[in-house]
């Protein structure tokens, strides 16, 4: 097994920006702000955020803002709730939320809430509980949660609960660990976790652990390091982490490292990427691996960053 190759992971993430001709890099440019959020948060958990150029990052993030107040995934791309949260999260990492026109950003979010309490991802109207989470998390980080209709937002999320205790993206949609993270996270932020049947959901979530120790996101699927975040953060929020074998999961994550060049992959021996590097490191942080900053399971930011916002 061995240790967490912290320095190599930092180097890997910082070098991704230099591989601009890789196919994967090129065709994900519409998601760059998303990748930047995962990468920078990982570096912060590893205690090395100072290797990133704060001025450069903040000024680039601000160039991704659209006149509507929302942010796009890169300069010149249309705004969306998901990328707006990513922008706010990055600014939070660098203690720079004050560069924002809070009213403008929050009005963008408020404008996307629908009559039934759900949120559209953007002006084109796709509805998903992921967008509920993103809106709630973002507007809470901006400290104006009361600008949206919280009661209706919560009721909509609760309407997406299934008989297995999990949640899907709309009412009647299949339970999925990623969606569960979103719904539980949104309910945690709004102080409404009493709507979750913790034993029933915890049961479904702990059955995601497979023999290798890794977690999957749905029944019959292969384990994937990303669920070390989605499942584990959900279990943390509902206080049921002790229902899985933490030691085995820890070993699974460490086995997914590229020990030579840094980075973490979905499964042992696969190709690494920034997303899974975050999921692995964040999962280890939830498992209280030594020398890692603690991460907040609902806001998906280091606890000290969240505290800086709410207890300033």
């Amino acid at each position, binding site marked *: 097994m061995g240790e967490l190759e912290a320095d190599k992971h930092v180097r890997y993430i910082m070098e991704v920006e230099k591989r601009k001709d890789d196919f994967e890099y090129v*065709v994900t440019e*519409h*998601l760059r702000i998303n990748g930047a959020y995962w990468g920078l948060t990982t570096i912060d958990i590893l205690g090395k955020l100072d290797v990133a150029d704060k001025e450069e990052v903040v000024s680039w993030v601000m160039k991704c803002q659209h006149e509507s107040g929302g942010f796009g995934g890169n300069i010149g791309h249309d705004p969306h709730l998901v990328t707006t949260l990513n922008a706010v999260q990055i600014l939070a990492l660098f203690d720079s939320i004050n560069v924002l026109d809070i009213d403008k950003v929050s009005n963008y979010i408020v404008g996307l809430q629908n009559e039934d309490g759900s949120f559209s991802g*953007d002006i*084109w109207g796709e509805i998903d509980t992921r967008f509920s989470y993103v809106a709630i998390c973002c507007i809470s980080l901006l400290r104006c949660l009361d600008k949206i209709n919280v009661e209706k937002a919560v009721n909509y999320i609760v309407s997406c609960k299934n008989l297995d205790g999990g949640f899907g993206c709309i009412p*009647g*949609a*299949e339970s999925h660990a990623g969606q569960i993270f979103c719904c539980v996270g949104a309910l945690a932020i709004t102080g409404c976790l009493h709507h979750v049947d913790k034993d029933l959901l915890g*049961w479904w979530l*702990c059955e995601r652990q497979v023999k290798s120790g890794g977690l999957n996101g749905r029944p019959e699927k292969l384990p994937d390091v990303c669920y070390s975040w989605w499942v584990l953060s959900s279990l943390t929020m509902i206080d049921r982490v002790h229902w899985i074998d933490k030691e085995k999961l820890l070993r699974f994550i460490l086995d997914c490292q590229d020990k030579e060049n840094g980075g973490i992959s979905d499964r042992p021996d696969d190709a690494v990427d920034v997303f899974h590097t975050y999921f692995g490191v964040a999962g280890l942080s939830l498992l209280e691996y030594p020398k890692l900053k603690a991460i907040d399971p609902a806001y998906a930011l280091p606890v000290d960053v969240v505290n800086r916002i709410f207890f300033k």
Partner: protein
Amino acid sequence: MEEVSQADPSHLLQYLDSILDSDPFINEVGFIHPSQFLALNEEAAAPVSEELSAANSSDMVFWHRDHKLGISTQYLVPLYKAAKCAFMAAVGRYNDSNLSAESGEKNVSSLQDLCAVQVMKRSRALLLLTSDFGTAWNYRKLMILREPHVSTYMDELGFSKLVLSYSPKSECAWSHRRWVIKKISGNCLNLQEIVENESDLVKLIAEKSKMNYRAWNHRCWLVSYMSSEQVKHEITSSRVWAGLNVADNSCFHYRSRLMLRMLEGLRTKQGSKAVSSDNAEYYKIYKEELDWNETLIKRYIGREALWLYRRFLSLFWVDQFAIVDADALAHINQTPISTGEIKTFLDNEVQLFYSCQGYSNNDFEDYQAQATFSATYMLWITRHFSQYAGFELIMKLRLRDLQEVLDKYCPERSFLWDFLRTP
């Protein structure tokens, strides 16, 4: 194939556009490794066309035959860069033409039309290279809204299907379909036909792309647009597929969605007289589903999705039919499940549990999995049925056996036992 200069990506893009323009019936796009070009050509029994013979393998960028289009992985980066550049430029020109129109300039509407055509064309090439470039999908929607005809909307369904042929999990492509359907659902005469085609498309894609959450989610979304006849038809017609894909949890979730939808339909009919025959039919469908699931569980050993579906069916049954509230029952003209029926049901589940322990000395992983799933299923039954009369009688003597199986096959789940047994 014409020789395509490697140095000029815009030339590559033009070539891609010309193929797409020349063949509006292309139904599949894929990225292929340069080494596959030769194999593909040999495979196609037809004599090598002039186009193909003109170039050697290193110059091969596109493979186009029988309405299938292959793009060489070697050229994806330059092609993508050229396509993105051209799209952004077209968007810029379109936005400029809009500004001119807003500032009152005359005769700009034909210019706007031209710009709109370009935006559609440029977004087409770009989305065939990167399926989740949201801004390109958004601009397509914007262009369609300029002149929203049903035929244009239908074209979008066709285009999104083409994108799904190479990227079946593309969230943007699925979402684009929902946008189109929401737009036309208000004034569309053949909505039921469109919904049926959508459902078939998911079936087709799920065949190649197993356990595709985005695809099945789309099918679940469609259910709210289905007539009650369609819902019934879907339950029957998708059964064979499910029986052949017993590890695909999504298809069983889809069935649970259909069952719940049917029940919703019955409940909204409340007050009308003819509901008792509907209820009987519904109950029959439910029973068939339960029996069929048991058959599959015994045929395919150790499949988690089947057991989870049984958890749904059992809970659904007791939730929906064993209603204690007499008013609610009178409302839907239904009699509650009797204590006797609950006993019969529990007896059957207990027998199923024991039938899964028959091979307890067998080390095969599937058999161990079967024993584990049957035991956790019994825990589920314990949790959800313990308040019904008859439960203790049936289960009391079996609890020790259950605990033994749990200890043997899934000691890591022993906490479930603990929390279920402590009131």
